[in-house]
């Protein structure tokens, strides 16, 4: 277009020299005007202006097009201005008149376009606002992990996006409804309205609903919040309603279909964002708990003996593998005198943290009783008395308490509901199960009468095996038990080896057996070997 501006300028200069060059001047003039018209139609940018900007533009374009128009008129008339410039240079005159035409047409078109765009300006503004708000929210989903902050942003954006005066967010967990954040409304007011609308429980508001109430008036303490219309949108994730988003207006005009959709779309986004924030919060909490469990595991390791007692004639090996971070199995050794070694292997019902607590208590009981009572049966009776008081009805503890004389190899022990002792003597292995019910199952007379103490004279190279039910009840992927026979055989086949190696062999077979199946109970294995000749 600018080129044609220049061309018509020069063609006019040519006329000065030769008036026969009249036609190119007119041709260029016309083409330039056509181009001006084309150029002026490129005004789509007007649509993207805000309503306020459009008003400004309207005023400016009116003024400018009028000014250009007047100027152009003065050029056409045979006024002094025209004569001065024409005499000065006909080219400049043409150029000036073209500029004036350009200005007039361009701003004229802008004026009309803006005028036509005005009625839709508000809708357009809102759409633009919605889009940018949704984008804001999408960004928030990935950036804001703080639940409270996110809830507040959601209510703030809601008021912006759907042109409402107030917005608030309530969260629903089970039957409880909790106000999470408010915008432009007091907590008390929002709570009241929420309770009015949801309190009856008649309506679940499974999809968005607009409520038109003549006077939803809450307490007028703070000047009164009088809403004419309220939109309630459920926050749904996986078809479950986690809460509601409220948007409320003072004004008469109802939420229209578009706004209704927007609120719903916004609620959907918000639901996902909140769910996300919740999950992240939970995973942080989980991490914290895991650290606590690590601490608990360390403490439990200290409760169990770190080394086994050593002596010439008695070889000992012990092993504990909890199913979870902490477990309910317990074993310990007590040096009662130079000759006597007391030991306990116990298993608290259940597993994990609850059993670990009881296990710590069991440790305390055996630790103190072993110093006072040197008879296994009496000791277990006393332990039952103590435990029964503090145990929950449905919990129990199985235990074996024994005393080995390191001088003569006599083992005295009593069994309270625990898995039987294995005695491997030569090529024979036998399970020894004297009667006795678990600790915490019954009060004294019953418990004491059930319990029988046993005495075994150990022979050279005899092996005593104490274990928790985590070994025989270990499962494979077919839900079959590891069983007692497998344990017997491993011990028999490895009986010549050191106790640590036997223990390893058992664990190896056990993990082979129950691969593809998580360990479901704590495992304890305590072995003794009597070496007569040392």
């Amino acid at each position: 277009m600018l080129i044609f501006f220049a061309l018509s300028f020069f063609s006019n200069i040519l006329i000065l020299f030769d008036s026969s060059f009249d036609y190119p001047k007119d041709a260029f003039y016309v083409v330039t005007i056509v181009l001006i018209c084309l150029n002026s139609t490129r005004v789509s940018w007007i649509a993207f202006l805000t309503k306020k900007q459009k008003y400004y533009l309207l005023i400016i374009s009116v003024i400018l097009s009028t000014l250009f128009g007047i100027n152009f008129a003065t050029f056409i008339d045979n006024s002094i201005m025209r004569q001065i410039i024409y005499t000065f240079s006909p080219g400049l005159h043409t150029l000036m008149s073209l500029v004036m035409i350009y200005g007039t047409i361009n701003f004229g078109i802008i004026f009309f376009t803006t005028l036509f765009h005005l009625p839709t300006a508000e809708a357009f503004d809102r759409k633009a606002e919605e889009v940018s708000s949704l984008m804001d929210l999408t960004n928030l989903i990935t950036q804001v992990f703080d639940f409270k902050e996110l809830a507040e942003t959601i209510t703030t954006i809601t008021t912006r996006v759907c042109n409402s005066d107030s917005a608030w967010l309530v969260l629903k967990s089970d039957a409880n409804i909790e106000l999470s954040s408010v915008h432009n409304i007091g907590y008390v007011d929002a709570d009241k309205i929420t309770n009015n609308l949801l309190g009856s429980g008649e309506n679940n508001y499974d999809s968005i609903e607009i409520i038109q109430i003549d006077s939803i008036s809450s307490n007028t303490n703070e000047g009164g919040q009088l809403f004419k219309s309220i939109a309630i949108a459920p926050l749904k994730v996986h078809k479950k309603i986690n809460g509601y988003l409220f948007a409320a207006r003072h004004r008469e005009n109802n939420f229209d279909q578009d706004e209704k959709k927007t609120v719903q779309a916004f609620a959907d986004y918000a639901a996902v964002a909140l769910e996300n924030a919740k999950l992240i919060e939970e995973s942080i909490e989980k991490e914290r708990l895991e650290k606590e469990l690590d601490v608990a595991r360390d403490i439990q390791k200290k409760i169990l003996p770190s080394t086994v007692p050593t002596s010439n004639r008695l070889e000992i090996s012990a092993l504990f593998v909890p199913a979870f971070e902490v477990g309910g199995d317990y074993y310990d050794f007590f040096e009662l005198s130079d000759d006597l070694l007391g030991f306990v292997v116990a298993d608290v019902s259940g597993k994990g943290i609850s059993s670990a607590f009881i296990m710590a208590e069991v440790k305390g009981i055996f630790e103190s009783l072993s110093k006072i009572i040197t008879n296994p049966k009496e000791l277990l009776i006393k332990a039952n008395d103590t435990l029964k008081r503090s145990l929950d009805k449905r919990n129990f503890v199985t235990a074996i308490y024994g005393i080995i004389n390191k001088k003569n190899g006599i083992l005295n022990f009593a069994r309270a509901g625990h898995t039987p002792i294995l005695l491997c003597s030569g090529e024979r292995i036998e399970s020894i199960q004297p009667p006795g019910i678990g600790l915490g199952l019954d009060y004294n007379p019953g418990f004491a009468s059930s319990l029988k103490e046993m005495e075994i004279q150990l022979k050279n190279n005899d092996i005593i095996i104490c274990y928790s039910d985590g070994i025989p009840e270990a499962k494979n992927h077919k839900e079959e038990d590891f069983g007692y026979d497998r344990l017997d055989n491993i011990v028999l086949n490895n009986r010549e080896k050191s106790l640590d190696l036997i223990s390893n062999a058992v664990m190896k077979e056990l993990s082979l057996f129950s691969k593809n199946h998580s360990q479901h109970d704590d495992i304890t294995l305590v072995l003794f070997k009597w070496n007569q000749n040392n």
Partner: protein
Amino acid sequence: MAEFNVNLRDVGSVSVIDVKGYLDAHTAPELENIFNKLLVERQFKVVVNFDELKYISSAGLGVFMAYVETMRENKGDIKFSNMKENVYNIFDLLGFPILYEFYKEEKEAVHKFGDQG
């Protein structure tokens, strides 16, 4: 997930609970619900039929321990019947046979309540 089913039926004045599958910490609450219901109905004579029970964990055993006292205080009891050997071994190891009555047949157990009046 291991399956567990529990069913309650009346045989005369005695309530019979059929347990089926795996009774462990996860499934124990189902059995507890049944016992709670019985307590509400003041029905204290209970026979638990173990015919189709495959496995019981300590949490499962705990359920019976939790309710047996109340039953006995109200002149009732929890009796066990039709137990498979592997399940019985678990009870036996803990000394349950000293504290509870075990029967081969459900009929016997129900009948025993009748004898007591």
